[in-house]
């Protein structure tokens, strides 16, 4: 029995899914937008990192940064196309979801058309090699994935706790109407939120590309997983997302170890449905109308 291997895999997956899911969660609770174009932003950032790796530098830091930056750019594009024109129209939730879904389909097709159907390979960001953890080997890309995602998430959360823009975003998560009364511009904050969550998606994209190949439609599954982790943890709650990411990461690692990778989605969604049946608002979700601390 190879428990340490399972645990390490679970942690790695939890970090990557948590990164994505916190993006989904923040977007939903501050902008009221279910961002279905995360899949597109994900692949967009991946291709951005790939282009940089091809033409500019193989340096890991440069590749990571370029992935994060193209992700942020993708987020800004989606914000300009979907959030800005729609956010004060009736039925924004549904319209926004459909608009972002359309952007996702359109964008991934454009990526497919431009880059072709052949999968791309991003060179290893963290170099080759491995270290021993709990008596089992952990390759550098896994160590790097865990460390960078934790670092980036901590940085984002600290920024949200301490900076002025962060305060604006948190205020908008709580009460958008009151936010405009205290002079917080919904549109400008929308750009910040989408840039940051896009950057998180870009980071996750580069991290996942260390394990999987890069392709135009490669963002769909991570997006669905990110969405379901966010739902499971309770939209709008960072703690909930972390707990859900750990639970689903353990589930995925155990399932693929003992039953095989093809059963991962089945057990994952079974587990999500189970959690949502027991607790419809998610693990640490706040009730929409009674948001108490």
């Amino acid at each position: 029995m190879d428990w340490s291997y399972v645990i390490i895999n679970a942690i790695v997956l939890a970090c990557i899914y948590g990164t994505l899911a916190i993006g989904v969660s923040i977007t939903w609770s501050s902008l009221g937008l279910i961002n279905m174009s995360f899949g597109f932003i994900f692949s967009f950032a991946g291709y951005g990192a790939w282009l940089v790796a091809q033409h500019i530098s193989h340096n890991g830091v440069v590749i990571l940064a370029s992935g994060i930056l193209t992700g942020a750019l993708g987020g800004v594009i989606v914000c300009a196309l979907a959030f800005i024109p729609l956010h004060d129209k009736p039925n924004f939730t549904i319209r926004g979801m459909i608009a972002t879904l359309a952007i996702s389909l359109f964008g991934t097709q454009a990526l497919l058309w431009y880059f072709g159907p052949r999968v791309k390979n991003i060179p290893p960001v963290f170099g080759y090699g491995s270290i021993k953890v709990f008596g089992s080997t952990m390759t550098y890309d896994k160590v790097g994935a865990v460390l960078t995602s934790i670092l980036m998430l901590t940085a984002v959360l600290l920024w949200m706790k301490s900076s002025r823009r962060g305060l604006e975003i948190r205020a908008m998560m709580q009460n958008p109407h009151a936010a405009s009364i205290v002079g917080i511009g919904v549109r400008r904050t929308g750009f910040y939120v989408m840039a940051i969550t896009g950057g998180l998606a870009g980071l996750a994209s580069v991290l996942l590309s260390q394990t999987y190949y890069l392709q135009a439609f490669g963002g769909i599954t991570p997006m669905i997983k990110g969405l379901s982790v966010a739902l499971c943890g309770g939209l709008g709650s960072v703690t909930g997302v972390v707990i859900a990411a750990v639970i689903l990461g353990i589930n995925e690692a155990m399932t693929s170890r003992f039953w095989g990778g093809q059963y991962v989605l089945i057990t994952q969604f079974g587990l999500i449905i189970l959690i949502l049946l027991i607790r419809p608002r998610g693990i640490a979700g706040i009730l929409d109308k009674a948001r108490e601390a």
Partner: protein
Amino acid sequence: MTDQFPVLQIDGLSAGYGPMRVIHDLDLVVSAGEKVGLVGLNGHGKSTLFLAIAGLTHWQRGSIKLNEKQIGRNRSQGPGRYTHQIVHHGLSLIPQGDEIFQGLTVKDHLDSGAYTKSAWRNRAGRRKEILQIFPALEQLMDTSVGRLSGGERRMVAIGRGLMAKASLYLVDEPTLGLAPKLGKGVLEALFDIELGESAMVIAEQNVALLDGRVDRIIGMHVGKLKGEAAASLAYQTKREI
């Protein structure tokens, strides 16, 4: 008061929600340094007037000038789209029902009111000034607002409105839902604020509470302003309304 320049100048303002028109062709001038009481029954448009000034009604037309700058747009949609710009021109709306951020701490809350650059940089100093007005908030600084009592929430909401130096404060029913003693305390705190070049409009149902403490009292009736009175005539005004 007439030689003071007008902080707020409203000409022919109509506003409402959907097919309903709540404010009918209303004119109002508020001068610098003035405290104005706006009295009227429920549903006669006091809050809507405030919301229209902040650009939060569904539609509006007419002219609203804040510090000589046109902030009233003829618009038929997008409630709240321009509110943050209007706020940056120097409006501070302290809305009815507090509109607080439940999960944020009192400190965060006050900070969120400091929207101008100078107020944000000096937010610690501004918080101290607010604490002088509402000393009860001192020990609650790190408590989330969702856990506070109604009176404390009202203090936080008003404190948030006072964090930046606005030129026009609109206070909507500061005593609503509070025990009489608490409400009186909150109003007293508002009356004691040194306005300087700013102006304040307080909407209130209880005319007796405003008696003698504001510069003039305006009645509001079905979306129109009805008569003005010096504050000393408050009781008379009350009977006319």
